[in-house]
């Protein structure tokens, strides 16, 4: 027994000694925080050039999407020094600006002659500005992203399926342009045997823990006529959030979930969506555009087997898509802000942005996306441009987290757990959101 204790003691003291050594990181290394996803790996590759140019080493802290907001908002709120640079989600901008987590970049942009006019306008509003539509910049648009769809071109072009589809629905099987068509296609493929495997209609967002189901449902609701507030009167939500059109939209989302998703897809977000598409389970797949470069390269479903389409139109012909993507910001608690700003300056460079696109990132620089060669540079480039032209985003208010939680709960309770009606869910949402804004003193 004694020896065990001694061993424990010895081990403990050895541990302390060894970490004291290992914790001495290179003073000049910058830590960049982002989500763990394909573009982050591309950024690691890209940043090697930065280290080569400046001698400043880069370290990375990547967290999966489902923990991303939790972890990093917690980190920022605890005034942590882990991250020098952070690529924070678009909706964080209000809170991070008002609570002093991010360094304001206006002076730096003026000094370094970085102009926000050089970036895609939707991304500047979405990722950099707070308050919205005012020239106060807290981030540099880093990664353009938007919800769109991929589909199995090879299945869609099977003659026997095309024939059967035409007979059943009276139009040619092709990428849908309205949500009605999308649902018909999904129903058509649901539980169909293709190449000896049972396949399903579509993979959509249903994740409960972070933001999944809200991103997915909103992506549909916008085109059905959902509005966050009265355009004439800010924060007036009754009759807009829970309008009849919104109810129709949410009912549609539930119908799509009930009829046409793979079994057990009750908690699926970007990663699960990619898995479902890659494993050949689904005919269509809702996901952010960042997944497309990876899927295009996939041995089993990529190449000429995959096609892309922008979010379809709603019943009234409205067409919108949920904005994703992020800007890169300097954390105000960092001790290495100068080096961090150097990184941003480097990143804003046109050549770097062009390489960023070629490695699998989505550049927001006009010079890159408006280049005549851009639409043809990748099979998904045109769909990306089309989608970026119709974006809408969730609340970016400082209270975005409780707003998001309310919608996560209301949507999941209705869509996945089947409790109450769509009208109940949206009425409840108006109530929850009203409470949040009242707490903020905005109503």
């Amino acid at each position, binding site marked *: 027994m004694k020896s065990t204790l001694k061993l424990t003691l010895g081990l403990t003291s050895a541990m302390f000694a060894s970490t004291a050594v290992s914790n001495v990181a290179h003073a000049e290394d910058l830590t960049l925080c982002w989500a763990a996803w394909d573009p982050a790996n591309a950024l690691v590759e890209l940043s090697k050039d930065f280290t080569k140019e400046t001698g400043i080493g880069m370290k990375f802290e990547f967290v999966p999407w489902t923990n991303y*907001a939790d972890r990093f908002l917690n980190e920022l709120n605890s005034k942590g020094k882990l991250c020098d640079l952070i690529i924070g989600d678009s909706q964080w901008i209000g809170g991070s600006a*008002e609570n002093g987590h991010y360094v304001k970049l206006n002076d730096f942009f003026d000094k370094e002659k970085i102009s926000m006019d050089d970036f895609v306008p939707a991304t500047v509003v979405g990722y950099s500005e707070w308050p919205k539509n005012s020239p106060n910049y807290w981030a540099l648009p880093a990664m353009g992203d938007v919800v769109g769809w991929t589909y199995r071109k090879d299945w869609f072009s099977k003659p026997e399926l095309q024939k059967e589809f035409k007979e059943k629905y009276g139009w040619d099987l092709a990428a849908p342009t309205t949500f009605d068509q999308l649902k018909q296609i999904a129903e058509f493929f649901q539980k169909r045997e293709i190449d000896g495997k049972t396949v399903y209609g579509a993979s959509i967002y249903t994740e409960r823990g972070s933001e999944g189901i809200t991103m997915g449902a909103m992506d549909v609701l916008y085109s059905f006529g959902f509005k966050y507030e009265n355009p004439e009167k800010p924060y007036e939500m009754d009759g807009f959030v829970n309008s009849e059109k919104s109810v129709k939209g949410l009912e549609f989302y539930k119908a799509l979930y009930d009829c046409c998703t793979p079994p*057990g897809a009750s908690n699926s977000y970007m990663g699960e969506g990619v898995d479902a598409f890659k494993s050949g389970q689904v005919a269509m797949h809702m996901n952010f555009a960042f997944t497309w470069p990876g899927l295009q390269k996939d041995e089993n479903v990529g190449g000429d087997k995959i096609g892309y389409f922008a979010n379809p139109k709603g019943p009234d012909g409205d067409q919108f898509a949920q904005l994703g993507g992020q800007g890169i910001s300097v954390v105000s608690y960092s001790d290495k802000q100068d080096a961090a700003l150097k990184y941003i300056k480097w990143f804003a460079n046109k050549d770097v942005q062009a390489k960023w696109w070629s490695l699998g990132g989505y550049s927001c620089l006009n010079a890159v996306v408006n280049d005549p060669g851009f639409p043809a540079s990748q099979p998904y480039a045109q769909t990306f441009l089309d989608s970026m032209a119709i974006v809408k985003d969730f609340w970016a208010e400082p209270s975005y*987290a409780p707003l998001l939680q309310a919608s996560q709960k209301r949507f999941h309770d*209705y869509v996945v757990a089947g409790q109450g009606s769509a009208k109940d869910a949206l009425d409840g949402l108006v109530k929850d959101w009203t409470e949040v804004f009242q*707490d903020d003193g905005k109503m």
Partner: protein
Amino acid sequence: MTEAGLTMLNRTADSVARATPERLARKVRGISDKGLAWLFISPTILLLLAINIFPLFWAIYLSFTNYRANRPNEVVRNVGLANYKRILGDQDIWIAMQTTAHFVFWTILLQTLIGFTLAWLIDRKFRGHAFWTTIILVPMMLSPAVVGNFWRFLYEPQIGLFAYAISFVSGIPATQIGMLSNVSLAPWSIVIVDTWMWTPYVMLICLAGLRSIPEYIYEAAEVDRASNWRQFWSITLPMALPFIMLAVLFRGIENFKMFDMVNLLTGGGPGSTTEVASITLKRQAFESWRTGYSSAFAIILFVAVFGLANIYVKALNKVKQR
């Protein structure tokens, strides 16, 4: 100073001490008993004051404010009992409490039944019982979070082992066994994992209870020709009851606080069907950052556990006295 030197010094001190009055002797020998007692106890008390009590009082203070930890620049207002009223009037909170109650009730029931049965069987001391007991104990040593995460994989409807095994036995297609996606199955998914993990714990305590029953009682019963069945109901069960109740208490407290396993297994979903109180609290406190509000909820939870546990301990003592 070498040990020998130390001893020698003490010896000298001792011989001086013997010649002096009692109080002085203690001083010479070193610290007085009372001083030593406080020297030994105070670090623990200080640590608990700093890390447990001070924060608790802080939380009590915060529960009367509208403080939000992610708004350092905002004025903190005293809101009186508003947070408490809001929580007690919030339907979602009551639903979370019901979910917690369902979870606590069924886990305790199953764990006690299975745990006691196992202990009762192991007590027969068949060959190799020690080895198999150790094997049974393994699940309770593991991290609930890491295990909860892995059970998510076992529960997958197509590729998961659990669904496959169930469909193999029952003939229901594996794709229909959505343990985590089906609203009526999900509450059971967390009960199953918790029962799997913690039945061994209940079993151990029951085993200690069974082994504490003196053998002569059974011998006396044999003499009276009491049937096995009667012996079980009139000796084994009543005498092991305090232990069973203790196991229930421990598991009850633990499962009332349950967070890690459920958070990783279901995250409270689908909808809010497995959202136990701790998950609601975490969402309010660390996602919505309603610090004042969630502090009030935390206090309510603490008072609830504490109150229930105290009532229960009183009942337990009554049983023990019988």
